[in-house]
């Protein structure tokens, strides 16, 4: 029972993360921009969102990239790195 609850929470968390990244993409990228990511080619906003919803390799890589940046901002790693070049 507990395992089922944990599993449900994990799925909800994953959905929250996907939605967070989709919201960031919609807010932060102009429609005329495309992201180039390896063999995935260059992707417009809708294509990026589709990869995220499909949870394929490219979608996971886009999510990872967003999470790494968020983590760097939250942990202070980004500001510390930026201060090192000022």
């Amino acid at each position, binding site marked *: 029972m507990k395992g089922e609850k944990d599993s449900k929470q994990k799925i909800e968390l994953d959905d929250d993360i996907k939605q967070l990244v989709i919201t*960031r*993409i919609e807010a*932060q*990228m*102009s429609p*005329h*921009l*495309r*992201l*180039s*990511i*390896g*063999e995935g*080619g*260059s992707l*417009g906003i809708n294509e990026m969102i589709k990869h995220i919803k499909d949870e394929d390799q490219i979608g996971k*890589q886009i999510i*990872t*990239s*967003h999470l*790494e*940046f968020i983590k*760097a901002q939250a942990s202070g790693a*980004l500001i510390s*790195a*930026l201060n*090192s*070049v*000022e």
Partner: protein
Amino acid sequence: MKKSVLITLPNFDDVTTYLSIFSKEIILNCQKNQIKIKCLEKEKVTSINTTNIIKKLDCKMIIFNGHGSPKSIRGHKNEKLISLGENDYLLNNRITYARSCWALLELGKKCVEGNKGCFIGYKIPFMFIIDNTRITNPIKDNIAKIFFDTSNLVPIGLIKGHTAKESNENSKRSMLKAINKALTNNDKDSHAIAQILWNNYISQGVVGDANEQL
């Protein structure tokens, strides 16, 4: 081994077109510094041509543009040029810069084992942003330029006589400066630009003898 450079310039999709076009600066720097450079372009970027040129010209430095994986670097239409366990020995004792996704992870480490070579590359995908309104004339794409100006500093640093370590660090410093500039601009796209620059910043690295020079 000769103080010369081999560069691959595949051009069969958006990504490889941009990689090749923005490599012009690297080629110009070779010419300016009187360093011989062999350009392997478009459909000529095949495994057999790459192997033959490396063996024949014995170039000290090799610059790969193209798709990649942890175990391979690819050329025209994704033909494998260098594969882990098959012909990675071709990169032994050389300086390699691979602007290819993932290749630093396994291939890069393997090809510098037990020799004086070094490998600079990316342990996750190298990413960049394109301005779609400039796609027919990429060289005018000032958004994509940010990602290539910063990564080009690896080979350009080596061409100017810096070590692999110095060239890698200088390139990464320029990424941080570009992130700072983007975040200071604070327009709609600046956060996305900063985030993708950070992706390249954390994934770019050097393995092997980082004191190697061209």
